[in-house]
């Protein structure tokens, strides 16, 4: 009769053997993972242009936009109440609007009229007011731009340009 305890009949695999992974198995898992990464990268390439909203959206009036003075700014939300945006009237009178969410770690950017830039106080990120591109600090992607339309009824946000 065997000296092994009775529970061993129900659990015949030793703990050490259960956790033993050979180099061949490791190579197999890594290659399988490699294939998965290829599929994910191809997926990003295929659906990449659909990852962010782009183009024409809902037409929403920006309340008080006409009253914004030169070098002034106004906060609003677009396209949903959970998407903060900032409208800026630059020194030359042109109106631009961007998402207020920093592309680095999602802090809220603020307008700095003296530097004609949008500034993220969390990690000292700087964005150019003219096109929303990062001009300093950690952000590497530009701020999504809100497309504006001006009419006799007021100033409207009509879409997001990534």
């Amino acid at each position, binding site marked *: 009769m065997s000296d092994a305890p009775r529970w061993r009949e129900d659990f015949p695999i030793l703990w050490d053997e259960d956790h033993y992974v050979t180099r061949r198995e490791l190579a197999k898992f890594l*290659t399988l993972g490699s294939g998965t990464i290829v599929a994910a990268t191809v997926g990003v390439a295929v659906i990449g242009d659909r*990852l962010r909203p782009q183009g024409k959206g809902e037409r929403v009036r920006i309340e008080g936009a006409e009253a914004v003075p030169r070098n002034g700014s106004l906060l609003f939300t677009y396209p949903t109440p959970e998407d903060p945006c900032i409208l800026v009237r630059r020194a030359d009178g042109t109106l631009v609007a961007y998402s207020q969410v920093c592309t680095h770690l999602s802090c809220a950017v603020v307008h700095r009229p003296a530097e004609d830039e949008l500034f993220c106080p969390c990690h000292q990120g700087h964005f150019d007011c003219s096109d929303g591109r990062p001009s300093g600090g950690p952000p590497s992607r530009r701020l999504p731009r809100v497309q504006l339309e001006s009419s006799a009824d007021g100033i409207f946000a009509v879409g997001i340009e990534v």
Partner: protein
Amino acid sequence: METGRQGTTLFTAICLLIAVLVIIQLWLLGAALDAALSGEPRLAIPASIASAVLFAINAGLLWYVFDFDRRRRRVDPDA
């Protein structure tokens, strides 16, 4: 003729090489995702091609390991 000692060294090197290639693939995936989120999804196409090439190299290395084992067993059936 392939020996067990040759195999030990070789397979460790192959495992390390595959791991390095997988890390490069992860970097490519991150770069592709970053480009797509920046509104430039076309950059993901060369990243996909490069990633597929690395996967082919990994598959080739894995095939070499199993082929090595087969040849060894042919010489020594108890191996």
